[in-house]
Structure formats: structure tokens, C-alpha cells
């Protein structure tokens, strides 16, 4: 069966959709992603749709589902790279993707994920704790 690959990159999962989506494929992705979030303890999911020409109400709903499910599993979702024509069409269709974070490209999406998940601050705090201990001695 055809599947969309999911890559693990540090604390995040990365998905680049390079094929034309049909419903079964989108449903498999939803399922696989949630399982991966659970298995890896990922803190964020980045979905790149820059190669996707069509997002209709079903695929829009899947994107929303992935975001809601991930949030329950303590992971944030960012959808990046939406083509302008797709954005125009989605809004006219009546789908505003509420609750889904979006960013213009992968780079900005990664920044947003770091921002939303506080991973950098957590790491910095851990580092600082170590330093303070040293100075106290």
C-alpha cells in the first residue's frame, strides 16, 4: 500500500507530501503520524504541503484532525508552504483550518515549532542550572 514517509528530526517529525493525495492515503498519514508521535514522544509535527496542488474539505479536515490529535498527545503541528491558489480556494470553500498553525516555509515552520514547544528554553535552563551549581562551589 502507498504510504507517505515520516522523518524524525530531533524532537520533531517531518512530513513532506510529494504526491497527489486521495482519501485513503490521507487517512493512513493521519494514523501513522499519531502512532509515530506516541512512539517517539515527538514534541512537534511539521507538514510541508508546498507540492500539494489541491486541498479539499476532506484533506483539510485531516490536517485539522492531525493538529487536534497531536495536541492531545502534547505535540504541536505546523503546516507549511501552502500555495497561494490553495489558500484562496480553501477559504472560498469555507475551510479556515482553525487550530492549525501555519508558516510560509519549512525554516519559519521550524522556528515556530521551537517557539511553541519551548524546547530551546528548556535546554537553556538545564545548561544554566549546571553553570550556577559550578559557581556556587
Amino acid at each position, binding site marked *: 500500500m502507498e504510504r507517505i514517509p515520516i522523518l524524525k528530526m530531533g524532537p520533531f517529525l517531518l512530513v513532506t507530501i510529494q504526491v497527489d493525495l486521495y482519501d485513503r492515503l490521507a487517512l493512513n498519514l493521519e494514523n501513522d503520524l499519531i502512532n509515530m508521535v506516541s512512539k517517539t514522544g515527538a514534541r512537534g509535527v511539521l507538514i510541508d504541503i508546498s507540492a500539494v496542488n489541491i486541498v479539499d474539505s476532506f484533506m483539510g479536515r485531516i490536517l485539522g484532525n492531525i493538529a487536534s490529535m497531536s495536541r492531545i498527545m502534547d505535540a504541536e503541528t505546523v503546516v507549511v508552504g501552502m500555495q497561494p491558489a*490553495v489558500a484562496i480556494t480553501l477559504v472560498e470553500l469555507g475551510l479556515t483550518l482553525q487550530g492549525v498553525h501555519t508558516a510560509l516555509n519549512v525554516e519559519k515552520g521550524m522556528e515556530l515549532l521551537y517557539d511553541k514547544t519551548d524546547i530551546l528554553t528548556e535546554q537553556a535552563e538545564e545548561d544554566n542550572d549546571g553553570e550556577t551549581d559550578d559557581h556556587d562551589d
Partner: protein
Amino acid sequence: MITMTKDTMQIVREQDVVPFRNRVRELSTKIGMSLVNQTKLITAASELVRNMLKYANGGKIILEIISKNGQTGVRLTFVDEGPGIENIPQAMQDGFSTGRSLGLGLPGAKRLVNEFDIKSKVGSGTTVTVTHWKNGR
């Protein structure tokens, strides 16, 4: 009104949706439709073909390039022999669905195209015709 090209596609399973969408893209590119208008038409087509698969187990689609009053456009006719729609005004409302979806398919598709017509007879089937003109008006 003159029909310039005409062909028919049978839709019996979900995977047939991808070649169908590609065929619609070919036709709209051929008449020089802008990317935004192509995306709107293909998204509307994607909604309608899903309905056909979901409620009627498929059907046939007639794809035409037509010309009227000096305008060129793509016309798609979705013909199924499913259960038919009992209450069309209700089915055309945003958020109404008998199938646990978002209920955006029919009303959303109507918003995306220039001309939309639906005829249905309970027990014998549904025919939806959509036309999108080259300039999107």
C-alpha cells in the same frame, strides 16, 4: 453553445480520483485558465467526485470544453445511479451532512465554480453539472 471536446471517465474506486483531477487540470490548462481558477475547479470537482463515490459507489463524469458567447470554459457533468437526494436545499446548506463529514462538499463546490446545477431523483440517481469559464467569471 458549442462543445469543442468531450470525453467520459468512469469512477469506480478512490484511486480513480487522481487521474480524473489530472484530466481536469489538462483541460483547464489547454484553454489557458489561470492557476487560481484551475485550483478552484479541481477542488470543486474533487468534492463532487467524493460524493459520487461515497453515496453512489461511483458513476461517470463527462468532461467538456465548451464555448458560449465568445467565452471558453470547462464543463463537468457527474452522473450517478445512487440513492438520490431527498432534500436538495438541505443538502446545499453549509454544515449539513448525512455522512459525518464537514458538510462543505456541495455548498463549497457551488461557491468555487461559475455555474452549478443539481438534479436528483430519489431511487434513481443524481446529476451535478458545473461550469467554470476561462476568466473565472
